[in-house]
């Protein structure tokens, strides 16, 4: 029985060998081509690997390629010109290591981003709290000096917090999509999809939108000084420049995604609104300064309107000289000129308006001339009594002299001679 089994085994071996022998007649060319095909496939897989796990699985593939071809090493050494068998496999491993570094970098960037995103979220929350607090203070405690100090502190905190958040958003975009900053080269559809998913994952559009809304709200709830506005303008310019660069690229990436295209348009509108808010803030605050001193002007939002409003206000006041009591007229001038124009507007806001080209030098001169005219017209009224006194004195003097001249000359009675 055992012998029978042995014969069977041997027959089987012979059959297997018989089948195997023809397959041994293999073309060297075919061996080399197969090796090259597998080599290129692994190379391609390394480049297109989406994760570190996928990449690591290719190490096994490289080892398998080596093991499957080790018996043809001599042939491959000669045929893989200018490389050889070992050098080719080394090359694959080098590709693998380089790609591995890409993943490590992406991992680090993703961790960075996660941290940045957390910070942005925290700042979003904090900014909302600060804005609400400031709003309350603005409405209820403006006249309380202690509260004003607290309010100023809050505004400073909010200002730096908003700035920090903007910087973080820029940071997120920069770290997320370095390929967008690489240059003018066209992104492949694969690149675009990758950027799209990263932008979505990190709520970039929502955060940009949120940031703009907060910046607008900040301007609305606070009364800002020219220095603050200058600072905001700088921040605005930087953020606008960032968006100008990124917005175009993101629009390209988001083309065809209707809902998101709308979001991009919203962001553009918010940028316009923000610019408008910063420009209007100066005019609003100037109007508030006048109102604080009881001078209620109609709205103005540019240099021309401002000049026209101030001029017509002064014209009205000039017309009213003599209609209003002198005290009222003088008081109006004092409040306008001394307490508002020369105390606040001229030293604080006019340089800002001129520098920002919101007011021209000619317009400023025309306002100054108008104020001087108003002053000149008020001044004579103040010294009327002197003129009257002088006139009265003059009349009295003339009358006295006239009387003196026209009175009949009476001869003095001659003194009788004194008899001695």
């Amino acid at each position, binding site marked *: 029985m055992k012998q029978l089994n042995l014969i069977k085994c041997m027959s089987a071996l012979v059959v297997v060998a018989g089948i195997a*022998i*023809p*397959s041994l*007649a*293999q*073309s*060297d*060319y*075919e061996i*080399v081509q197969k090796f090259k095909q597998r080599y290129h496939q692994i190379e391609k897989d390394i480049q297109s690997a989406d994760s570190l796990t996928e990449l690591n699985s290719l190490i096994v593939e490289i080892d398998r390629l080596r093991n499957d071809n080790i018996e043809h090493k001599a*042939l491959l050494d*000669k*045929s893989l*010109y200018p490389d050889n068998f070992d050098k080719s496999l080394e090359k694959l491993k080098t590709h693998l290591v380089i790609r591995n570094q890409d993943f490590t970098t992406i991992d680090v960037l993703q961790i960075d981003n996660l941290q940045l995103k957390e910070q942005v979220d925290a700042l979003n929350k904090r900014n909302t709290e600060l804005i609400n607090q400031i709003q309350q203070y603005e409405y209820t405690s403006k006249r309380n000096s202690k509260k004003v100090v607290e309010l100023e502190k809050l505004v400073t905190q909010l200002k730096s917090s908003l700035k920090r958040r903007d910087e973080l958003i820029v940071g997120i975009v920069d770290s997320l999509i370095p390929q967008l900053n690489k240059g003018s080269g066209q992104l492949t559809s694969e690149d675009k999809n990758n950027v799209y998913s990263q932008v979505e994952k990190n709520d970039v559009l929502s955060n940009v939108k949120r940031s703009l809304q907060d910046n607008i709200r900040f301007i609305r709830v606070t009364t800002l000084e020219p220095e603050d506005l200058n600072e905001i303008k700088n921040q605005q310019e930087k953020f606008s420049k960032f968006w100008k660069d990124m917005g175009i690229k993101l629009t390209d990436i988001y083309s065809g995604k209707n809902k998101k295209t709308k979001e991009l348009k919203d962001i553009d509108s918010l940028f316009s609104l923000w610019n408008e808010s910063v420009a209007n803030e100066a005019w609003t605050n100037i109007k508030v300064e006048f109102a604080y001193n009881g001078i209620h002007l109609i709205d103005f939002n540019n240099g021309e309107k401002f000049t026209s409003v101030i001029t017509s206000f002064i014209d009205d006041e000039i017309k009213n000289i003599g209609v209003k009591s002198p005290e009222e007229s003088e008081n109006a001038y004092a409040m306008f000129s001394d307490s508002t124009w020369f105390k606040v507007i001229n030293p604080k806001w006019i340089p800002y308006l001129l520098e920002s080209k919101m007011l021209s030098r000619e317009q400023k001169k025309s306002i100054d001339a108008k104020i001087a005219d108003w002053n000149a017209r008020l001044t004579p009224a103040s010294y009327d009594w002197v003129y009257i006194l002088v006139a009265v004195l003059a009349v009295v003097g003339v009358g006295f002299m006239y009387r003196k001249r026209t009175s009949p000359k009476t001869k003095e009675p001659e003194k009788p001679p004194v008899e001695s």
Partner: protein
Amino acid sequence: MKLIKTLLLLSLIITVACSTLIVKPTDFAWPVETVLKINDDGKVTEDRYAIKFNTKGIFYEELNDSSAFKNKELRILRNMNGYYFIISKQFKNIYVFEADNGALVLENKIPVSETGLENPALNQREPYVELINDGEKLLLTNDGIYRIEK
């Protein structure tokens, strides 16, 4: 006697002056055959070993049709002695050429199949060239078939 000595000396000088420099041994063997696509004009170009030639003559010789090269591939392998072994599908013979003064000169035409080769391939098996076709193997030299292996 003096004349003989002078003639011998002269002939020695002439022999030395006219002898060709030979570098030997030189191995011309390509490690692996090259499979070349034939272009519309019947030409093939091998970039690594820098050789190009027109195949029309070979196809005419083999198939009596100089346009039979169309959509065909040519397999070439150079052996260690510098002979080019050329074969293609449907060929009944393998062509052995020698490079000579800007030309490939037919050295030998070795009959290898009665019906034409279906899947020929050439391997370098120094000092031979191995022709394989669907599991059958032939060991060749430029002179002809050295051995058939099955």
